[in-house]
């Protein structure tokens, strides 16, 4: 079967991959639906059961949405793809900044961040300006935005406000823009199937996160940092790493990597992604909210977006640069 897959054209391979993934998701959704039909006589058990089902279906919905978006991204042209990811950045940053205490003096910097930095970063990706793309935000924007804030003549909590804005830009724009940037990597003997590399990264990181979540839920252990995350234990983390990296090694046939390389790179992406998720959790605790959409708080939105993509935002730049460095691209 592996040989048959090897002999297909790249486009067919990717297509087959999507069929497989959609099939798996469908299977998971179906079994979850059947499970939700089961009734417990005990009222309390029933409630726990229902809560579990709700939690799982939430997770499944995220996976559906992510895979669907990447499927669309694969089907469509480069520009649509960029716009899609730029919109992702936009909504993530909107969520991030909603919960940061910005003041009126930050208004100009915010306008710059949303309407200048964000489009320009994606423009750099689209026009393959590699060198500027990697330093534009960490160097130029880092220096320019505080100037806009300083000119607004408001010294109250200046460092805090600027640090939060910089952080949001780094995670939501810089991190996210590395996902479509994978398309630009020019591997020898890997004729332009880079869309697949994007899917590879997303699948690996998402598998790692889902496994970690499930292990933490059903095999609870004392958490490592209970004030930040109740679900982060070394055990669940280890399982997540293992699952993500193994999947990466299995998928090696359709990437430019050898299985060993794919394993190592997936491991790097998973470590960055899951630890990044932990860091974002710490940020949320600081703002006193359980999830980004701020359930039960007055500041809300259509969101929860950042919650779902933060691990990807951390994994993508690390993955991108390790690949580039290792293969000398």
């Amino acid at each position, binding site marked *: 079967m592996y040989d048959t897959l090897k002999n297909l054209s790249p486009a067919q391979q990717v297509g087959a991959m999507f069929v497989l993934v959609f099939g798996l998701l469908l299977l998971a959704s179906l079994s979850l639906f059947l499970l939700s039909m089961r009734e417990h006589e005990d009222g309390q058990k029933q409630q726990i059961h229902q809560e579990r089902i709700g939690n799982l279906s939430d997770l499944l919905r995220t996976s559906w949405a992510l895979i669907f978006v990447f499927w669309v991204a694969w089907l469509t042209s480069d520009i649509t793809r960029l716009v899609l990811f730029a919109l992702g950045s936009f909504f993530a940053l909107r969520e991030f900044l909603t919960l940061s205490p910005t003041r009126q003096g930050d208004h100009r910097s*915010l306008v710059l961040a949303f309407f200048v930095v964000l489009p320009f970063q994606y423009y750099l990706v689209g026009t393959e300006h590699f060198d500027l793309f990697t330093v534009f935000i960490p160097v130029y924007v880092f220096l320019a935005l505080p100037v806009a804030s300083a000119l607004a003549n408001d010294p109250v909590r200046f460092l805090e406000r600027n640090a939060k804005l910089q952080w949001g830009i780094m995670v939501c724009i810089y991190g996210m823009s590395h996902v479509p940037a994978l398309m630009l990597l020019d591997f020898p003997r890997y004729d332009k199937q880079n869309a697949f590399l994007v899917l590879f990264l997303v699948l690996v990181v998402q598998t790692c996160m889902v496994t970690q979540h499930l292990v933490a839920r059903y095999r609870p252990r004392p958490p490592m940092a209970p004030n930040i995350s109740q679900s982060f234990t070394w055990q669940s983390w280890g399982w997540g790493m293992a699952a993500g990296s193994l999947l990466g090694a299995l998928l090696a046939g359709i990437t430019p990597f050898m299985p060993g390389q794919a394993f190592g790179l997936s491991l790097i992406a998973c470590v960055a992604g899951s630890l990044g998720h932990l860091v974002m959790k710490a940020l949320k605790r600081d703002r006193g909210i359980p999830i980004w959409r701020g359930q039960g708080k*007055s*500041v*809300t939105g*259509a969101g929860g977006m950042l919650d779902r993509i933060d691990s990807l935002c951390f994994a993508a730049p690390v993955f991108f640069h390790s690949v580039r460095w290792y293969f000398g691209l």
Partner: protein
Amino acid sequence: MSPAPRAETHWRSRAVARVSPLAATVVSLFLLGLIRVLTGAQARWWGCPPKAEQRIYFANHQSHADLVMIWAALPKELRRSTRAVAAREYWTKSSLKRWITTAVFNVIYVSRERNASEDPLEPLIEALADGDSLILFPEGTRGHFDEPQAFKAGLYNLALKFPQVELIPAWIANVQRVMPKGEVVPVPVLCSVTFGAPMQVLPGEDCHAFLQRARSAVIGLRDI
């Protein structure tokens, strides 16, 4: 007056009358999309469901965008029969503002300046008598602080005159961050409108006590 110019204005106003409804639909769709992208425009029906009953929604007022925000947060079916109350002095300053507020939002203008000869509530009473719902900002003007200013008596008087109309407090969160005073370009920040439980003037309750109660009902929605 010669007949020629009269014919021209006649033709022009007819053209405007024909194009205006279409343009209003286009503009309202555009504004809705823009607001959803910028703010999420989330409605949280915490104290009551969105129902097509005659209601007076009253909310805190921090920004001119409040009007657009609460309009966008209402479901489409209610938007048509719910009219916001807006300050005539600000919203009729330019012809574009006037057109948007009349053709798109269908607002009711009230004058801030008191005029001895007319009751400022007159147009509101008319609209309520027609069966429309109202969106009211009882502070009368935009506040600059987290807490709304003292409410004006109009709400109480309307409630006395129309006891069957439900009074719904609402808290609009975050809009002042989207476009602070004096800025032109809006910034994307998630905003929400929280609708509270209906309230009524209690028997024998005086104006001051009721307004106090209404104001704390609005503030109470902030932290939900």
